């Protein structure tokens, strides 16, 4: 007899006139790994919030192991044995790693005080499990790198010894070897009866780990099926509800006389960027790759004027380019603009309207005698909304009401409005659904074809290889390798990311996934 870890019956939720989820019924068998797929806006995040008890559905019921879930906060679901590893990191930066691990349920001594000695011992065990054995449990969580934080977040999920573990985009910032380790932990835990809900945009991961998949689209459950019973293409079609012809737009070979737009020579900054030199030409998409936290972010922020340079020089169209800050980088004759890594904290003013967010960086032109020209604002933002096919009810609605993919489009529109000479795009497709990803890929290629230079940072190797004309791989703040043409393949990118050959991390190329 099979036991259902999760049973949803007729679950529906509306936000005003928008139906986020309608009549979803789903059984998830205990001891299986169940993937939930869906574009942004498909209702995935609403479903997660309902499962974790943060949000109450308008209709329907949720049972965890045959017990009805009260939707009065995360504690209710936790009591029934559900732990969540959130995509938006839920760590408290000023508390230590061990305090974070046991934030809600610390080991206690007889009198109800927190047992610090046991907490230390137990945290060592969980840190070892996820590969953070070299992190001291007393370190402040805020001092960890993004990858380490993500691993800690995962350890925190396991440390609650749940019956159901919900992983929401938990691998978004993990390099390949950590993903492998995570999958091994999941496989082990599954054998001991753990039920895993796995939410990811990475199709290859889902194919490796999930027993069954459910596809959501427009708030409805389209189909639930055993993972390997459907092909990659079929799943994509189910997700998008439309045919996806190819993943990446075609590249055009760059003319040999294409002028250099941005040239960097011997650039160093903070302690993360060390003696970096490269040039990017008109019409080129230059990939910036490597493991997370190897100085990519700091390099790009330095070019944008957000971080002061310590040494080296940068030229734009052959002229010295030393912006005193982002405002100066944008204000130039030939603007340099940056799409930040974290759209919610570094990009958007979440409570402000879609239109105001879009027009935030627009230079001059839109105001007269210091007063905003509302007619021009409406026209220009309207153009962008149409051009990028942003799905919105009204441009006056707060930008926080949009799905992740549409929020990212609003940010891209902000850049496009200034027609920059150089686009610095930091992980533009992070946490975005397949359909929107394709649109963004096509847009980036189109920008390059129209004569912009694009710096494209991503942690996804497939993107790096499929999207970029040339790739610089960084390790420890320096460029380890430049790859293009035939040499631009997964094995080379991986090797360069790991700084050539570290014996313990060599992987058999035959086992690696070949990009389609």
């Amino acid at each position, binding site marked *: 007899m099979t036991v259902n870890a999760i049973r949803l019956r007729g679950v529906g939720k509306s936000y005003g006139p928008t139906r986020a989820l309608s009549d979803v019924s789903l059984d998830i068998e205990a001891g299986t790994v169940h993937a939930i797929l869906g574009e942004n806006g498909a209702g995935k995040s609403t479903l997660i919030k309902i499962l974790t008890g943060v949000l109450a559905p308008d209709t329907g019921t949720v049972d965890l192991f045959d017990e009805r879930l009260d939707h009065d906060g*995360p504690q209710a679901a936790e009591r029934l044995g559900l732990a969540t590893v959130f995509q938006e990191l*839920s760590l408290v930066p000023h*508390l230590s790693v061990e305090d974070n691990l046991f934030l809600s349920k610390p080991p206690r001594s007889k009198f109800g005080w927190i047992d610090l000695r046991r907490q230390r011992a137990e945290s060592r065990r969980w840190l070892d499990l996820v590969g953070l054995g070299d992190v001291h449990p007393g370190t402040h969580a805020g001092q960890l790198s993004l990858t380490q934080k993500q691993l800690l977040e995962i350890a925190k999920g396991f440390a609650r010894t749940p019956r159901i573990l919900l992983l929401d985009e938990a691998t978004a910032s993990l390099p390949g070897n950590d993903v492998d380790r995570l999958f091994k932990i999941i496989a082990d835990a599954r054998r001991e009866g753990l039920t895993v809900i796995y939410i990811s945009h990475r199709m290859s991961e889902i194919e490796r780990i999930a027993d069954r998949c459910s596809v959501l689209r427009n708030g409805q459950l389209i189909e639930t099926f055993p993972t390997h019973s459907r092909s990659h293409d079929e799943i994509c079609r189910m997700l998008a509800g439309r045919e996806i012809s190819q993943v990446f737009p075609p590249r055009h070979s760059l003319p040999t006389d294409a002028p250099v737009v941005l040239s960097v020579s011997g650039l160093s900054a903070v302690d993360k960027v060390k003696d970096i030199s490269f040039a990017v030409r008109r019409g080129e998409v230059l990939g910036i790759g490597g493991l997370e936290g190897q100085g990519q972010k700091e390099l790009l922020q330095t070019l944008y004027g957000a971080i002061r340079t310590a040494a080296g020089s940068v030229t734009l169209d052959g002229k010295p380019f030393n912006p005193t800050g982002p405002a100066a980088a944008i204000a130039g004759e030939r603007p340099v603009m940056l799409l930040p890594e974290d759209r919610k904290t570094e990009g958007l003013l979440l409570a402000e309207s879609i239109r105001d967010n879009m027009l935030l960086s627009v230079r001059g032109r839109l105001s007269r005698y210091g007063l905003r020209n509302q007619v021009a604002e409406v026209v220009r933002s309207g153009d962008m909304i149409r051009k990028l096919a942003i799905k919105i009810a009204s441009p006056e609605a707060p930008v926080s009401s949009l799905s992740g993919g549409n929020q990212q489009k609003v940010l891209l529109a902000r850049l496009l409005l200034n027609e920059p000479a150089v686009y610095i795009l930091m992980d533009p497709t992070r946490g975005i659904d397949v359909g929107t990803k394709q649109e963004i890929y096509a847009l980036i290629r189109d920008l390059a074809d129209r004569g912009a230079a694009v710096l494209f940072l991503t942690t996804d190797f497939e993107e790096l290889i499929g999207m970029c004309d040339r790739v610089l791989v960084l390790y420890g703040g320096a460029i380890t390798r430049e790859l293009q043409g035939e040499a631009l393949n997964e094995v080379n990118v991986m090797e360069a990311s790991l700084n050539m050959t570290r014996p313990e991390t060599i992987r058999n190329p035959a086992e690696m996934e070949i990009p389609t």
Partner: protein
Amino acid sequence: MKILTSRHMPVLLGAMVFVIVLAVYLAVHPRGISSFVIQSYANSAAPLALAALAQTFPVLTGGLDLSVGGMVALTNALASELVHGSPLEIASGVLIVLSVGALCGALNGALIVYGRLQPIIGTLATGAVFSGLALFIRPFPGGEVDAGFAYAMTSILFGFLPVSTLMIAIIAACTWAAISRASLGRGIFAAGSAPQAARLSGLRIERSIIAAYVLSGLFSALAGLYLGFQTLSGDATIGAPYTINSIAAIVIGGLSLRGGAGSPLSAIFGAYALRAIGAVLLFTGAPPLAQPLFEGMVLVTAVAAASIALVRDPNRLRAYQ
């Protein structure tokens, strides 16, 4: 050494400021170093140290308590009514005074958590209410605080260890040990550091925020009580300066007003340093009426100095955090 990393630096700086200021104080003191000088200095700084400790807890949650002065005034007025007579009456009087302080704090916490008021606005309003109540209880300075008990609390042991300092050290150490070993206390830090993350993790930070304001009320009551020991009477206007000075003290001691991290030592070092600064100004002939001016300037300087790291940060995005 690992301990010298940035998170311990602020409190070490606070300790340094304290040591330097104390040295200057003792050097310029017209009567030189004596047991009596130490005793009177320590006792005059004690209420401020208690008020600064009170302020520490709300600040750790990312809030601020502008009713500290009001609570000091109210509890001081109350002490002048209740803390005298038989030993039993004194004991119950002390208990009532402390309970009223805690109750005032609970009211602040409830307004902030359940009333969704911003801490600054909520406590500004309740602070006015508490000051008003204090005036109602004691319209004119007067009343009585048991002299024998007060003498014991303001005396000095072995000629160098003031009872007040010893008491404050013990109370602060016990409170801190409890805070760092209780979920409730962990929530105080989490509330100031990443409230959303803490909530998602299933921590009930609302309770922690209320607890922080209750502790603030309790320590304010200790300050009000101690002022009673010093003056042997009550005065409804004596509490007012403690709001601004408690904030100045913790900032001088190196506590970040952004919340999330810090140590009670900041409050203690800062309070004793601030008192010594005031006394030095007095010795050097600054007019007493100019004291608030100087205290305000000290506060501005201390806050600016605490932010100096931001100005030097090569990452321009962090310039105004």
